């Protein structure tokens, strides 16, 4: 038997295995084979995917495997700093070099990339090759299927991630009977997982023990992610970013100011790195046992549960984010912060082939393998939450919590200009955390800047987009908005 037959046999065996195991991956491979037969692509042709450094370890083995299976040369172009991915992608929209075939970016940048003509709509290919986004046992967790894939009523990306935030806490301390007794004696209520933000704040204060090297919490107030600590309180209070009829900002409202004051009041129980550091500070302090709890992405579960990277392995608990009561009913709002999605470059060599590469990586089995490896991509398909390898990697307790949080999550602002809207909010919240602005000033300055952005980008189109975006919020939030008169019932999609 010649080496060619060996290779052919291996390829066929691989394809056969995948056909049995994963129809989504098989359809992608069959599509690539067809394009190759039709001469659209050729063996050895190079395809380049722009990714963040945090995904290299997860994607590199899969990309190697796909290169082996197809004979294509698939390369990962690694960018070190997240915000640079936006800059480089938008640069490609101007220079149209064709250097990239796929972009793995934050899903709330899809709007900007689509409007700049950089990425192509995927509707026809999704219809043709069916990546099983919405239905079936391997579908995306809802509502991630909407806000990691679509913009303006069209599909522009395949979601690769689930960035619904999780509350990570020191289970050993929270469940310690001595601590519980002291807490109850001091506050007149039991020490338990918080349902409301008010309880969260009390417990943070209780466990803040600088003299023992333990701070109460680590919440992001950094330049890039300050909104992630403010928004869940703001939304749970019934706040909404914009008026759905006029696009006037609604953040400098009593809900917004109160939410910010609450967060800033916790600063005395946190390290200064909450606003001077970056996102990785939580990944340092919490696994080192220096903070009682933190709110971060699911990948922190990997770090904190692994004895090699954590001093508190085995002592970590996972929970939903707290909420607010309205008329006796608890409303939780979990932010889905960034989230990575694969989109196809208009200027790539063969966009359809690039889409099929994305579908293969996104397929239930391949994505599960990728996410099992440590990195910044987290479980987003229903099958991921049943995959034994993946559950073992995340720990059995985290899976159900992450699933619940994802189902209740609300999206980042994903309008045209989303990057600018969020950055302005972040820098003003960060300035408030540094004491350079009062909460009122921070939010009113943001509101003024948002008005200017909306006017510049076209208020009519932004209103239309915002009304579509409202429908991607979880049902209970939309119900709350209607109850509080923030959104007319006919726009809430209830």
């Amino acid at each position, binding site marked *: 038997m010649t080496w060619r037959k060996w290779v052919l046999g291996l390829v066929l065996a691989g394809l056969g295995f995948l056909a049995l195991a994963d129809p989504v991956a098989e359809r992608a491979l069959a599509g690539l084979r067809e394009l190759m037969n039709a001469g659209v692509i050729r063996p050895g042709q190079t395809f380049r995917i722009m990714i963040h450094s945090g995904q290299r370890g997860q994607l590199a083995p899969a990309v190697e495997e796909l290169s082996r299976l197809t004979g294509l040369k698939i390369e990962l172009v690694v960018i070190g700093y997240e915000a640079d991915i936006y800059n480089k992608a938008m640069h490609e929209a101007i220079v149209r070099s064709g250097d990239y075939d796929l972009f793995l970016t934050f899903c709330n940048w899809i709007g900007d990339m689509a409007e700049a003509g950089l990425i192509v709509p995927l509707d026809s290919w999704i219809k043709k090759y069916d990546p099983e986004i919405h239905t079936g046992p391997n579908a995306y967790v809802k509502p991630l299927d909407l806000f990691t894939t679509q913009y303006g009523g069209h599909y522009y990306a395949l979601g690769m991630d689930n960035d619904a935030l999780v509350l990570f806490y020191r289970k050993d301390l929270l469940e310690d009977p001595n601590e519980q007794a002291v807490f109850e004696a001091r506050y007149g209520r039991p020490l338990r997982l918080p349902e409301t933000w008010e309880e969260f704040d009390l417990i943070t204060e209780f466990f803040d023990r600088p003299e023992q090297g333990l701070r109460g919490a680590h919440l992001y107030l950094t330049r890039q992610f300050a909104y992630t600590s403010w928004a869940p309180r703001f939304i749970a209070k019934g706040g909404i970013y914009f008026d759905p009829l006029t696009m006037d900002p609604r953040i400098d409202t009593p809900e917004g100011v109160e939410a910010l004051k609450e967060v800033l009041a916790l600063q005395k129980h946190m390290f*200064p790195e909450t606003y001077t550091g970056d996102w990785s500070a939580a990944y340092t302090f919490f696994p080192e046992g220096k903070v009682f709890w933190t709110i971060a992405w699911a990948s922190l579960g990997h770090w904190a549960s692994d004895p090699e990277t954590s001093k508190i392995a085995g002592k970590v608990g996972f929970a939903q984010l707290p909420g607010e009561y309205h008329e006796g009913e608890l409303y939780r709002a979990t932010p889905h912060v960034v989230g990575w999605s694969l989109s196809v470059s208009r200027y790539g060599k063969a966009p359809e082939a690039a889409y099929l590469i994305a579908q293969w990586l996104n397929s239930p089995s391949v994505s599960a393998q990728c996410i099992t490896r440590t990195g910044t991509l987290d479980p987003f398909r229903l099958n991921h939450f049943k995959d034994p390898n993946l559950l073992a990697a995340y720990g059995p307790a985290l899976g159900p919590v992450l699933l619940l949080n994802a189902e209740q999550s609300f999206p980042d602002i994903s309008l045209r200009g989303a990057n600018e809207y969020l950055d302005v909010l972040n820098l003003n919240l960060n300035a408030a955390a540094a004491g350079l602005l009062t909460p009122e000033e921070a939010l009113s300055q943001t509101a003024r800047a948002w008005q200017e952005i909306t006017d510049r980008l076209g208020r009519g189109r932004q209103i239309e987009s915002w009304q579509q975006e409202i429908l991607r919020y979880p049902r209970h939030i939309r119900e709350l908005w209607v109850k509080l008169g923030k959104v007319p019932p006919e726009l809430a999609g209830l």
Partner: protein
Amino acid sequence: MVCFHGDEGALMIKEKGKFKRATSSIGSIANLLNRESVFKIMLVTPMQLLLSFLLVPPFAIVIYLALVNWQPIFGSWTEAPFVGVSNFVRLFSDRQFFWALARTVVIVAISVSFQFILGMALALLFNREFHGKKVCVSVILYPMMLPWVVVGFIFYLLFLDHGPVNYVISSVFGPGATVSWFSSSVTALVAIILADIWQWTPFMFLMSYSALGAVPKELREAAMTLGANLWQIFRYVTFPTIKPVVLIALIIRALECFKIFDLIFIMTRGGPGVSTESMSLYIYRMGFRYGQLSFAAAVAIVVLVAISLVARIGVRPLLKEEL
């Protein structure tokens, strides 16, 4: 054929053993070349053409962008609507622009002043022979050879809340004395300026040291003989001699420092808020993070004009001396 210039400056050509005045077209060209101004132009023309080819089209695009309203999300830049000077009008009503400008000027003034004082002091210290001088000079020059990014990371790590600087401070003065360097605009700017001083004092040292080496010993000796003290020698003999070099070094450093980006980007990203944002970072945020390339182009033009004027004022003393 042999050519030379005759007594009256005319080109003479040797033909058949006799010299005669050149009257042909070759002679005219040769005469033209003989004019000093034309010859100078001929020397710089090739490089000027190359530079123009490299500089003019991008500069024209920047001017075009500044006069239209375009962001990548609006579609093709060639179809952007003309808005006249509205980007410039917006710029002059933007408080963040003026703050970024003021902050940059403060960074330049403090940083370059310290670099000059320290660099000059070191140069004077090294302007004599001592054991191990060559090694010391090499060591002093190392920071200048490091990339900005590396220096930024080093100082970011040094000034972290739980970093070495605070460790030293708490060891000496107690835990309560530590400073959260990046939490306020003043302390964050101090950290940035310290990083810049550390990296670029060697440049001022190098320039001053080279200039000092060229000062004739006889001048100093004469001054000493006449009873001048060390300060008087420096003030009236050494400094006037090295002044042109120092002035050029200051202008180069000031222009370079005005463009400061990497250090701030690595250390604070312009934060907290925008309180350490320099002019370059402001342009980067507007142009690249927000995609407002038309507005960023207008800012860039205004900054270019401002820098050119300041540089012109800085160079004027040198030109006067030349005259």
